[in-house]
């Protein structure tokens, strides 16, 4: 979990030019860090590459728009890292 967070925080810091110290597991990517949708594409690209996964951004956006989820579930960094860990675990158990 901590290594996932460190990687994600470093990606956000470098991609969005945000001071690393300001990025915490409690930070909301949009509300607290001010990352807009275009910058988040860069973040998602870097996360996908770093972890060998594909963040399901469209599914998450749809769930938020439909009221089935909150942005906090996906965009508070601690939660985002938990989703990333789930995707990594799912990748490891997926059939070849």
């Amino acid at each position, binding site marked *: 979990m901590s290594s996932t967070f460190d990687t994600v925080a470093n990606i956000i810091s470098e991609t969005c030019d945000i001071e690393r110290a300001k990025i915490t597991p409690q930070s909301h990517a949009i509300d607290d860090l001010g990352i807009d949708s*275009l910058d988040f594409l860069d973040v*998602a*690209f870097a996360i*996908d590459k770093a972890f060998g996964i*594909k963040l*399901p*951004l469209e*599914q998450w956006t749809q769930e938020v728009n439909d009221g089935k989820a909150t942005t906090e579930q996906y965009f508070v960094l601690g939660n985002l890292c938990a989703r990333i860990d789930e995707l990594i675990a799912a990748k490891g158990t997926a059939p070849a």
Partner: protein
Amino acid sequence: MRLEYFLLIDRIVELKLDDHTIRTEATVPTSSTIFEGHFPGHPLMPGVLLIETMAQTSGWLLIAMHKFARMPFFAAVKEAKLRTFVTPGQVLAVSAKLVHDGSGFAVTKAEIKCEGKPVCNAELTFRLVEFPNPSFRASMENVAAEIAFPMEVLAHG
């Protein structure tokens, strides 16, 4: 190229879905009002239009990969390098390769060569969304036919 319609590629030369690559060709028109201003007495193809040419080439690759179910909209350009001047009448060889197919976005690397020499290159990002309406998609299919989009590749892969 039909600059007045913002159609910057003339034809698709090769489309390889397995390799995630595309090659297109585009001939810079010998005359255009654009060259009257860019620049008087010294006509040059604007660099932004070269970037758009790479974007349109990448866009056709992405349309093919998503089998006309998604429309790519140009969102970002990085590391664009305009290496040499392009003048009216020159024939451009454009190529693009998918770098990443994300959820609702894609990233390509594209380049243009002229007579075998590098002209420009860039990394391009696109948002991929559903076509806004059926007529939009139909218009893109019409353009596809004009530029020899190989519809048969959609049956494979």
